[in-house]
């Protein structure tokens, strides 16, 4: 662990995907999937990563566990720089960080038995002998709420929710420190989602896990996260302690996202002012100038299209990048404007909450 208690430090990470064309496969353009994101995740806490499809949240998640190599910037995991490590050097670290994938149908090999799916990570890392591994797999199955008798079944014999449990068991097999969960519940029914969320929380308490929880559903994210990072078109646009994001969104994009979440209460739903964002997310190949959100923002002025707003610390670890911040009182605004505006680099340290990972 590094001195400030962060398990993962994401430092100015950029990930561009080249678009190649022609016989020579010359690079003609780049998809700016993740564009200069700095964020740290403390040991034992859950950071929620939200945004619409195409905002780069999954790409960032994959960079963190080094399924992708960042184009520039670095990732420090447990005090070790891993941004540039080669596959062989990464292998021992893979035990420490695991991923749970979105689609429970596509992320399990249909031709392998559950025992093999969950046991193989241990085999690859040379943990235990055959008997010990079997025992451990059976324990894991119980941990995630399945039965040890499921050891010899195939994935198709399970429902979506059960498959996702298998995916979680596989991720836990190596006793990782960090689990990146990429939309782990979005493919599931609402009632099963709740089971899954509760399971993930229990596991975190039992095993002291650190989560990066990627989702587009702000309701679920609020439930699991200590802090939430909102992304838009590859940029980190707001970072806030979880509850504060819901009571006091600063970035207009967050406000719009919040207002789009359906409320299962007809009267409240009818009363509520709804900000329907016009259009789709622009292409990350040619992101808009200035603030990337400005073409869809209802508060946008001229400056928004010209100058990219820096990520500013509004106190209490609440950062946002906006020229027209919402829900900020005059004093804070003056203080913030007076002090040199934080760059993402320096803002990072102060963004850590006092007591992460602790819930009431």
């Amino acid at each position: 662990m590094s001195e400030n208690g962060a398990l993962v430090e994401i430092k100015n990470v950029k990930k561009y995907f080249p678009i190649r064309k022609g016989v020579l496969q010359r690079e003609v353009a780049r998809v700016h999937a993740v564009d200069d994101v700095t964020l740290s995740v403390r040991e034992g806490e859950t950071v929620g990563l939200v945004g619409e499809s195409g905002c780069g949240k999954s790409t960032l998640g994959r960079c963190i566990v080094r399924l992708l190599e960042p184009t520039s910037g670095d990732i420090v995991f447990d005090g070790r720089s891993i941004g540039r490590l080669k596959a062989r050097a990464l292998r021992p670290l893979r035990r420490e960080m695991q991923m749970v994938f979105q689609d429970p149908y596509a992320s399990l090999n249909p031709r392998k038995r559950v025992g093999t799916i969950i046991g193989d990570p241990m085999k690859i890392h040379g943990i235990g002998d055959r008997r010990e591994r079997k025992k451990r797999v059976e324990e894991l199955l119980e941990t995630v709420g399945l039965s040890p008798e499921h050891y010899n079944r195939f994935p198709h014999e399970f429902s979506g929710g059960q498959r996702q449990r298998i995916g979680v068991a596989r991720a836990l097999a190596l006793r990782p420190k960090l689990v990146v969960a990429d939309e782990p519940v979005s493919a599931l029914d609402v009632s099963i989602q709740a089971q899954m969320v509760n399971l993930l929380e229990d596991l975190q308490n039992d095993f002291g896990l650190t989560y990066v929880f990627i989702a587009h559903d702000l309701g679920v994210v609020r439930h699991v996260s200590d802090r939430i990072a909102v992304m838009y078109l590859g940029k980190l646009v707001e970072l806030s302690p979880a509850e504060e994001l819901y009571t006091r969104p600063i970035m207009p994009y967050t406000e719009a996202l919040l207002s789009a979440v359906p409320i299962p209460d007809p009267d409240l739903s009818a009363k509520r002012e709804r900000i329907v964002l016009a259009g789709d997310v622009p292409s990350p190949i040619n992101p808009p100038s200035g603030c990337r959100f400005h073409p869809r923002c209802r508060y946008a002025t001229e400056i928004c299209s010209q100058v990219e707003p820096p990520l500013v610390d509004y106190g209490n670890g609440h950062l946002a990048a906006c020229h027209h911040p919402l829900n900020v009182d005059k004093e804070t605004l003056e203080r913030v404007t007076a002090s040199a505006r934080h760059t993402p680099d320096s803002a990072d340290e102060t963004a850590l909450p006092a007591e992460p990972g602790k819930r009431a």
Partner: protein
Amino acid sequence: MADRLLEVKGLKVRFATEDGLVRAVDGVDFELDRGKVFGIVGESGSGKSVTAMTILGLTRDRNTRFEGEVVYKGQNLLAMPESRLRDVRGNEIAMIFQDPMTSLNPVYKVGDQIIEAIVTHEDISKRMARQRAVELLRQVGIPNPQQRVDDYPHQFSGGMRQRAMIAMALSCNPDILIADEPTTALDVTIQAQILELIDKLKDDFDSAVILITHDLGVVAEVADEIVVMYAGRVVERGSKRDIFYDPQHPYTWGLLGSIPRLDRPKPKKLHSISGMPPSLINLPQGCKFRPRCPHAFEKCQQEPELENRVEERQHLDRCWLSVDDKRRLREGTIVGEAQEVA
């Protein structure tokens, strides 16, 4: 006087499979009036999609057994020959499918797919049909429809594809629009747009909508009447207000409680329904929800009928608990307070 479009009476759909008889739909009744949005809510495997597909005759097969009636304008669609049903399907009753990524044919232009739907049902020149397609794309909010009509589906984003699907469904000005999880694959921001669009178009085209979803939050916005389905049955049915402010069935409570609420303080744990939906081949005895129900008692060994148990006449449920017990048991867990509406 309400203009009744559709009546589903005692619908049962069974599939004969190698493993046994799958009772996918086991007794569903409802009526649909013009201008209304009717919500069907339930988990995967509750029979909601099969109900919708059966209305359109999409479940017809050697191994399917039907019972009951689906009456549309005085005709039973279940008994209608396929050739005649084709005139109804897509023309008078149209469907929007869940996955906009796979429901459009990737090798045909979006416009051509809409034009095909139009010329199939109407005697109209291709040029006229094309104009209609452009106009439809405009109505569903596609920018630059003149150009976009010649795009391929991969050039559309998810939300735009769903809009194109809606345009296609509306192309023949249907009486009934069936939307099967129309927003599940979309982002919340796009979901809000699509729901608004469906609600608006329903009025523009003077149709009725059947909205199928697993998310009660979605129907809270737009539905007039709601049925909650479980294991092929309707377990509760009532107006939107009944379902949200006075839900009678423990399964409905579970569904309501499972939704993380942004308008409430964060609970320590999300309320969840334990266990899984039963196998439709081997249904439990008595009330089908009994194995997962925290309030089950002896009487639940027998299956309750779907009947009215509350003061309101149109609010039906399938649960043996007394109304007072229900109101006590669900208290403090899930049910919102009805607000004073002006």
